[in-house]
């Protein structure tokens, strides 16, 4: 969203004091104690201020030598009364507040998990389940100052961490807030009753370019009417703290299920997508018209030659841009501050942003570079391919090693449980894979935290200690039961299982891996 759109955002409200209470516990937990305190305050205030004004007028000194009528200066009884009566009120308020606080803190056991990552300056929500509790085949990840879709009528639990500084996740309408910390998870939960959900749009027209079924569902969901609740960042986090606004779009369960499946299908890189990423992420510090903001402008940046702060020469090619995004402080352009936070973009997004930057360069890419069609998807460009691990490594390198673990930790157990029933089968193994292994092992040959499972079965592998081992049934079983006994060379000893797998589950997984030729 642009700054203008952020300003125009609307928060539903129906009173001068509190905004509309759009979650199940808001009224009971917060609004009732709030108004109890409110009336206590109003009464106490007048009990203090009315006598004050009355005495001011009644006992006004009308002549300079007018004496006070009385010099009475103490009364044990009165002191005890006005110390203890407030104390009684305070205890009542305290108890009620504590009760509400526990309602806000303790989420119902069947809450739907959504992972939230805060960064300077936006949120990234990763969806791993649909509202009917099915584990998604591919997680949906929405990044930026975006509209995040959540289902009504089902408790949602946000599992939050930050990849840089402190943030705080605040939804006024849900009366919920918690700081988002680096290196630690905090949670917030809410359930929006169905009557506060959005309603289907009337005669919706799809704009040009929205053609596929998935795009239509996404577009339609975002254009349902109402049900929008803003999200503020309330812990000061730097320059664009006040622009770190997003909103929830609350839709009925069925619509949410449709949306999350559509959103999780990969869209592929495009300039348009790059422009969107630019608006959400880069725009705060990089202009596209040549003017200097915090960092260099993107205009004519592509293939530009220059010097870094410590005197090295660089060419702003794909690899350089990619490195600048993942490790922003490695090569700082001369005369600019080392102020850029590392960006967590996936390959598609990265390619999109490079395409976008390229589109801002008037002249055709000069000297020696591959022709335009060659580098669009960045294939054949060795660094890009070779760098792919960077994406997977990053969670391990950076603040949150837990990132790799998290789907396993939090989301997996229920799915794993389901998979445990019945005799071993490749299908059951696939379920286990999707609930646990998928976090770190790909099935398409790409490198994540751990080695890919594609053609893993029977593979001869060299370990970090120079030993050789074969991943046959026994080898695999060993690798699952004692993950760190043999570590494939070049990989970190990072494997953790969220729970002990049963023999049947292990057999199922091995069967499944066998199918991945």
């Amino acid at each position, binding site marked *: 969203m642009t700054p*203008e759109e*952020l*300003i*125009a*955002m*609307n*928060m539903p*409200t129906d009173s001068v004091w509190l*905004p509309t209470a759009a979650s199940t516990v808001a009224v009971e937990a*917060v609004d009732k*104690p*709030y108004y109890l*305190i409110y009336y206590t*305050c109003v009464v*106490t*205030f007048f009990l*203090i201020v009315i006598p*004050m004004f009355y005495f001011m007028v009644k*006992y006004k*000194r009308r002549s300079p030598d007018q004496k*006070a009528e*009385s*010099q009475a*200066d*103490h009364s044990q009884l*009165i*002191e005890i009364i*006005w*110390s203890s009566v*407030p104390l009684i009120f*305070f205890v009542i*308020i*305290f108890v*009620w*507040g*504590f009760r509400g*606080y526990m309602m*806000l*803190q303790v989420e119902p056991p069947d809450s739907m998990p959504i992972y939230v990552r805060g960064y300077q300056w936006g949120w990234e929500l990763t969806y791993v389940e649909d509202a009917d509790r099915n584990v998604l085949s591919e997680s949906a990840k929405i990044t930026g100052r975006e509209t995040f879709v959540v289902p009504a009528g089902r408790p949602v639990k946000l599992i939050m961490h930050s990849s840089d*500084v*402190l943030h*705080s996740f*605040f939804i*006024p309408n849900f*009366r*919920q*807030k*918690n*700081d988002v*910390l*680096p*290196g*630690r998870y905090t949670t917030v939960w809410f359930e929006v009753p169905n009557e506060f959900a959005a309603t289907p749009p009337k005669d919706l027209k799809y704009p040009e370019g929205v053609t596929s079924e998935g795009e239509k569902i996404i577009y339609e969901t975002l254009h349902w009417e109402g049900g929008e609740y803003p999200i*503020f960042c309330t812990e*000061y986090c730097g320059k664009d*703290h*006040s622009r770190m*606004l997003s909103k929830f779009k609350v839709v009925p369960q069925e619509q949410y299920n449709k949306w999350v499946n559509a959103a999780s299908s990969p869209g592929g890189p495009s300039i348009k997508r790059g422009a969107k990423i630019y608006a959400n992420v880069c725009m705060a510090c990089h202009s596209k018209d040549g003017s200097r903001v915090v960092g260099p402008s993107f205009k004519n940046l592509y293939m530009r030659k220059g010097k870094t*702060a410590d005197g090295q020469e660089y060419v702003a090619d794909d690899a350089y841009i990619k490195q600048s995004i993942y490790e922003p402080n490695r090569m700082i352009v001369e005369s600019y501050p080392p102020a850029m936070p590392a960006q967590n973009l996936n390959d598609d997004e990265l390619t999109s942003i490079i395409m976008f930057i390229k589109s801002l360069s008037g002249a055709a890419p000069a000297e020696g570079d591959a022709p335009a069609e060659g580098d669009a998807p960045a294939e054949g460009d060795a660094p890009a391919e070779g760098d792919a691990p960077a994406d997977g490594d990053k969670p391990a390198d*950076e603040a949150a090693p837990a990132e790799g673990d998290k789907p396993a930790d939090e989301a997996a157990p229920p799915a794993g449980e389901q998979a445990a029933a019945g005799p071993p089968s490749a299908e059951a193994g696939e379920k286990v894979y999707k609930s646990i292994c998928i976090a770190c092992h790909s099935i398409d040959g790409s490198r994540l935290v751990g080695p890919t499972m594609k053609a893993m079965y029977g593979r001869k592998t060299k370990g970090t200690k120079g030993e050789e081992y074969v991943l046959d049934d026994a080898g695999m079983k060993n690798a699952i039961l004692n993950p760190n006994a043999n570590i494939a060379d070049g990989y970190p000893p990072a494997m953790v299982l969220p729970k002990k797998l049963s023999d049947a589950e292990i057999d199922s997984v091995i069967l499944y891996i066998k199918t991945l030729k």
Partner: protein
Amino acid sequence: MPAAFAALTYGLAFLAATIAFKKNRNTVFWYLIGAVGGIAFGAVYAAMRNLAGDDANMAALVKTGLTYSWIGPILATIIVGVLPKQDDPNAHHGDEHDDHHASYLNAKKGVNSWIVTLDHKRIGLMYLGTVLVFFFTAGMFAVLLRTELWTPGELYIGPETYNRFFTLHGAIMVFLVIIPSVPAALGNFVIPLQLGAKDVAFPKLNLMSLYIFWYGSSIALTTLVAGGVDTGWTFYTPYSVKSDGAVIMMTLSAFILGFSSILTGLNFIVTIHKLRAPGMTWFRIPLFIWGMYATSIIQVMATPVLAITLLLLIVERSVGIGIFNPQLGGDPVLFQHFFWFYSHPAVYIMILPGMAVQSELIAAGTHKRVFGYSFVAFSSLAIAFISFIVWGHHMFVSGQSELVSMIFSFLTFLVAIPSGVKVFNWIATMYKGSIAWNTPMMWAFNFLFLFTIGGLTGLYLGTLSTDVHLHDTYFVVAHFHYVMMGGTLMTFVGGIFYWWPKITGKMFNDGLGVLSALVVFVGFNLTFFTQFFFGSQGMPRRYYQYIEQFQTGHQFSTVGAYILLAGFLIALYALVDSLRRGEPAPDNPWGMTTMEWTHTATPPVEHNFLDQPVCDRGPYAFDHDEE
């Protein structure tokens, strides 16, 4: 690292000035030593940094080194320049007998007689001047901020400037205005007078804390030109570790100011224990003294924690020890615990002196004994004690455990009781009094009204569930402005007006004083009461840009800020005007009963009392003279 340069060169400059003065040698020589030392240090330091493999390049480091190295010597030039050639401060005490009856303002002349004075009244006055300068500086930032918030988007400054402005507003107001305002400025002037003492217990220590205060505040001022700070006055990690800007310089300044605070507190505690006039028992000291006593205890006990915290932050930033950095196994929330362990008691360092002044204003304004003297006195001590165990209520949504939050919430309610007791007692004091409608009393009414609102809205924030919603919104902003500004600043200004005749020997225009109080009252409520509304609605604090539906509220608030500014300017005018045109003040213009009014001249002589006064009655014995 510019901060290290600044600190050291300032230190060297001060040293040079002191030596030059003490030795009565050629001042230029010592100045040169200071200058060369400063530059040499800058250069050596830069070289070492470069050898240590720091990424920043040599040229840039040397350049910064030189920039900051020069500031010190320039300062030395100024100080050495204004000092007359020879003057031994100790020489004054013996010889000038004929000046015994002259007021402290006229007893000695010349810049030097002020800079190296050991007279608590002159030191207090210099504090007062400094604090007022900072008050208007930080106030200016407040008005600039409110102006930008007139529109939801950009009006005239960008987000980075805005963030720097609110940080400076907060940091200057807290560390350079409110904390030293009543204790260092008014306390210094009034405490020995009220106790019947010649001076504070350690006059040289007193002068030293003033120097430390100037030293710390000059570093804070340098921050303004060295790029500013954008962390907020709370310096929360990890942002304060990552942010560029002169964070170290600002924290160093707060670190140094802390020592001034500690020394002043220590001085007051000893003074109150040891220098009371004969016959002045603990229950005959004015309530102002009780409040200052409680404040001093907190200052001495809590400020070292802040010093440690800021030092850790400085080390974290410069060396990266990782105590607050999760990537190195640290914990950012630990910083918040450390910080609030000082800063919550500091809230009471700020408000207790306000309450202390309030008791005097009410007694003088009603000509009546303060109701429940012992309850008011002991409530100060109770607040001082409980204030140490409530810091966690700033952190209900920081990720601390539910149990801890519950305990802190409960303790927070306990601290509200003694504050409430004070308010009730002040109101009861007014009953059947003889209430003057004059300037000091109008400011006291402002305090009663505004502090009541500030205190009551604290209930929302001490209650766990409502705080989850209100934390870090404008509701909090409004609440603490009602307490800090509506509380402390109202009585600070009230106290200035109240003691002004004693300080300067001049009466101010009472009509102007009353007008200023009324204008401030209107402006204040317009500015901050509106913030309760949009704060409750969820408007977060420290927002440069906000959603459109809050605009009306923000505009009311901005208009209020300008009215508030006008009010304070009227007050300033009334004071300055009195110096030029004011009537000479009588010894006891308010008909008050405490010793600074009954036993001293206006303005007091250099040693306060011509003879040692003896105390034979309570502080507010208004009925005594009838006998």
